[in-house]
C-alpha cells in the first residue's frame, strides 16, 4: 500500500516518514553531487534503496548508475534479481569484478583473505576509475555497533577511509556534501531503517527480491555452527557432510561465507513473524565475516567497506 495519507489527522505512518526522509536524501545527492552511484548488492536493503530512488525521481529515470561488486561467489538467484531490476528501471549497471581485480593485481588473493574483504579494494578502485563522487550504500545503523555512529553523508578521504573520530556533525536534514579532489562521500539513505522496517516495506510495496530469502529446499552442510550452501566454490572439508534442509537466507553475500537458517517462512509476513521472535542478529547468525572479531566491522569500515 503506497500509503494514501489519512488526511483527517495529517499523520504519516512511521514507514511513510522513513520513506519521505530517504527520498529527500536521494534528491539532495542527485542535486548536489556531480557523479553519484548506487551500490547494489542484490540484497533486500539495496532493493529498497532502488525502490526509493525510483520513487524519488519518477516519472524520470533514476539519474545515476548502479554499481555491483561481483565477488565471483554470488548466488545466481541474486544476480537474476539484479538483472530483472536493472532492466525494468532502465538504469546503467556497472559491474566491478573481484576476479578481474585479482587478475589486474589490484587486490591480492592469498587464499586466506575472504572475498568480502577483497571487495574493499575492488570497490575503491571502481569508484576511483569511474570518478564517482557519491556512493549510496544500504547500511543501516541498527545493524552493528560501528554503524550506529555513521552519518547519512559519510565522508571518505582520498584513500576511501572512514575516520570515526573526525566525522562532520550532521544537523536537522541539512547535509554537507563538500568534497576535496579525490575524496568521495558514502551516502546511507536507510540509516534510520531497521531490519523489520525493511521487511514491512518490502511487504507493503510487493516488489521482487531474490528467492533465496524465502524458505526453500537446499543442499547444505555445517561449518563453524552455520549452514552453508553446497557449491563448487565451497569444497567440503574433512568430516563435513551434505544434507537437504528447508532453509532461507537472512542476508545475501559471498556464498562461501553466508550461512542460511532453517526456516519454513515462505512469505514476507512469515519472515516478519520469524524476525520478530528471532533471538540472534542477522549478521551474528549468518555472516562469517563479522564473527572473526567483535570489532570486525569497525576495522573493515575504516578501510573503506560499504
Amino acid at each position, binding site marked *: 500500500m503506497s500509503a494514501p495519507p489519512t488526511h483527517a489527522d495529517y499523520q504519516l505512518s512511521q514507514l511513510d516518514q522513513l520513506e519521505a526522509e530517504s527520498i529527500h536524501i536521494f534528491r539532495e545527492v542527485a542535486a548536489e553531487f556531480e557523479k553519484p552511484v548506487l551500490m547494489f548488492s542484490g540484497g533486500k536493503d539495496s532493493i529498497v534503496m532502488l525502490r526509493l530512488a*525510483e520513487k524519488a525521481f519518477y516519472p524520470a529515470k533514476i539519474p545515476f548508475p548502479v554499481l555491483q561488486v561481483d565477488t565471483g561467489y554470488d548466488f545466481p538467484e541474486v544476480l537474476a534479481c539484479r538483472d530483472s531490476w536493472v532492466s525494468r528501471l532502465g538504469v546503467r549497471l556497472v559491474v566491478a569484478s573481484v576476479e578481474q581485480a585479482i587478475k589486474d593485481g589490484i587486490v591480492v588473493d592469498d587464499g586466506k583473505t575472504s572475498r568480502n574483504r577483497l571487495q574493499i579494494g575492488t570497490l575503491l578502485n571502481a569508484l576511483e576509475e569511474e570518478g564517482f563522487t557519491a556512493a549510496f550504500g544500504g547500511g543501516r545503523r541498527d545493524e552493528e555497533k560501528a554503524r550506529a555512529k555513521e552519518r547519512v553523508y559519510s565522508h571518505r578521504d582520498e584513500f576511501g577511509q572512514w575516520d570515526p573520530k573526525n566525522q562532520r556533525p550532521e544537523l536537522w536534514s541539512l547535509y554537507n556534501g563538500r568534497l576535496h579532489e579525490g575524496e568521495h562521500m558514502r551516502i546511507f539513505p536507510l540509516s534510520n531503517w531497521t531490519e523489520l522496517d525493511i521487511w514491512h516495506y518490502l511487504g*507493503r510495496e510487493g516488489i521482487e527480491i531474490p528467492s533465496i530469502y524465502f524458505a526453500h529446499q537446499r543442499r547444505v552442510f555445517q561449518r563453524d555452527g552455520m549452514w552453508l550452501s553446497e557449491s563448487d566454490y565451497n569444497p567440503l572439508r574433512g568430516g563435513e557432510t551434505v544434507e537437504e534442509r528447508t532453509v532461507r537466507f537472512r542476508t545475501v553475500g559471498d556464498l562461501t561465507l553466508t550461512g542460511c537458517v532453517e526456516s519454513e517462512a515462505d512469505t514476507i509476513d512469515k519472515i516478519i513473524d520469524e524476525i520478530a521472535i528471532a533471538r540472534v542478529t542477522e549478521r551474528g547468525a549468518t555472516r562469517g565475516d563479522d564473527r572473526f572479531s567483535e570489532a570486525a566491522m569497525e576495522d573493515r569500515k575504516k578501510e573503506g567497506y560499504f
Partner: protein
Amino acid sequence: MTPEMSPVAEEHAGRAPMDLLRFATAGSVDDGKSTLIGRLLLDSKSIFEDQLEAVEATSHSKGYDYTDLALLTDGLRSEREQGITIDVAYRYFATPTRKFIIADTPGHIQYTRNMVTGASTADLGLVLVDARQGLTEQSRRHAVLLSLLRVPHLVLAVNKMDLVDYDESVYEKIHNEFTQFATKLNIPDLEVIPISALKGDNVVTRSEEMPWYHGPTLMHHLEHVHVASDRDLVDVRFPVQFVVRPKSDEFHDYRGYAGQVAGGVIKKGDEVVVLPSGMTSTVEAIDMFDNEIDEAFPPMSVTVRLADDVDVSRGDMIARVNNAPKPSQDIDAMICWMINEPLRPRQKLAIKHTTRMGRALVKDIQYRLDVNTLHRDQDTKELGLNEIGRIQLRTTVPLLCDPYSKNRTTGSFILIDEASGVTVGAGMINSGS
C-alpha cells in the same frame, strides 16, 4: 487515488508500528544513561541473544558480578578502551505502537556540539540526573540546549532512586528545583519521572518501591506523548530540491518540483508564490510516485506541478500568496560553534539553508550565552568551540526563512568552512530582514 495493491501488499497492510518518536538523551557517564538505554532496549526485547551474550562475557571478564547494560551501547572500540562515548550514536527500538529513534549523546562539557546535533531532529529530550547528586551544572546545561533547539517535550529522569531508598522527598526536591529553573526556558511540556535504570523501576514496569509516584513510567510516557501537533500545518513552506524533467515520450512535457514539505498543507488548486522571484501560479497537481494526491503536509516528499510555466529551480521556495517568508540577506541568529578555531567578525563562510547554498559574512557577534547561568556576555569578541552566541550575518543570496521558533526546518542553517569543507556551525534564526 489509492494505488493498486498487490495481493501480498494487501494482506500485509497495517502490521508495522504506526508512529515514530525521535528522542535525544543527555547525561554523563555517571548518571547511568547507557544503563538506561540498555534497559529500554532489553525490556522492550530489542536486544538479541548474541548481543547480550557478548555483553555478559565482557562484564564477566571485567570482574563485574552484574551484567553491565551500558556495554550494549558503547559503540566503537576506541571508545570502549577509554570507557567514554565520543559521538552521537543512534539506537532503535520499537513497541507495537511506536518506533523509537534515540540520538544518544555524550554529556561531557566539550561535547556540546554532539548534544546540539542529537537534539536538532528530536521530538523529545531525555535528561538524566543522579538522585544522590540532584541537579548539576551539566543537567541545567542540557535543559538549556534542548530548549534552545526547540525540542518540544522534555523528560527529566531522576535516576538511581534505589540508592536514596526510593525517598519521595529527594524526588520532590529535584522536581521543584527543576520546575523553577525551567520557567526561564522554552519547555512547552515537562515530565519528571523517578526511576532506577539498574533495577528497572518505572522504566518499563511500574515500581513497587515508589507507591507515592502516580505519574507514568518512562516507557508509557515515550509511547503516548503527543507529538503530532508539534508540526506547523498552517504556513505552507516547500523548498524545491530538484526539478523533475523526464523528457521521455510518455512524459514529454512533464515538469515537476520535487521536495519535502517543511510546513503547512499544500492543496491542489492553491494559489502559490515562488520565492525569491515572486511569480505566482496555481498548484496543478501533487505527485507521490505514480499517484496523484490532493494535499501534502510535513514531512511528505512529493513533486508539485504548477499550472503556469514559471521559472523554478533548486533553492527556490513555494509558499502561499498571502503567507510567505520575506527573503532576507541580513540574518540574526543563535549559533553553536563546532570547531577549535574560533568564530570572529568579518569571517566568511558557506551557508546552507533548506536547499539553498550561499556565502555568509559574520557582521557582528552580539553576545556569548553562558549555558550554565544564561548570562549574556556582550564583551565577547569571538566564539570558541562548543560556545553558543547571537550573531549577525550578511548573506550573498536571500534566505527564504522563518524564525526557528516557528519552523525548525526553515529556521535552521549550517555554516561550512570553505577551505576544509567541514561543518563548523549550527544556526537558529531569530529573524531576517
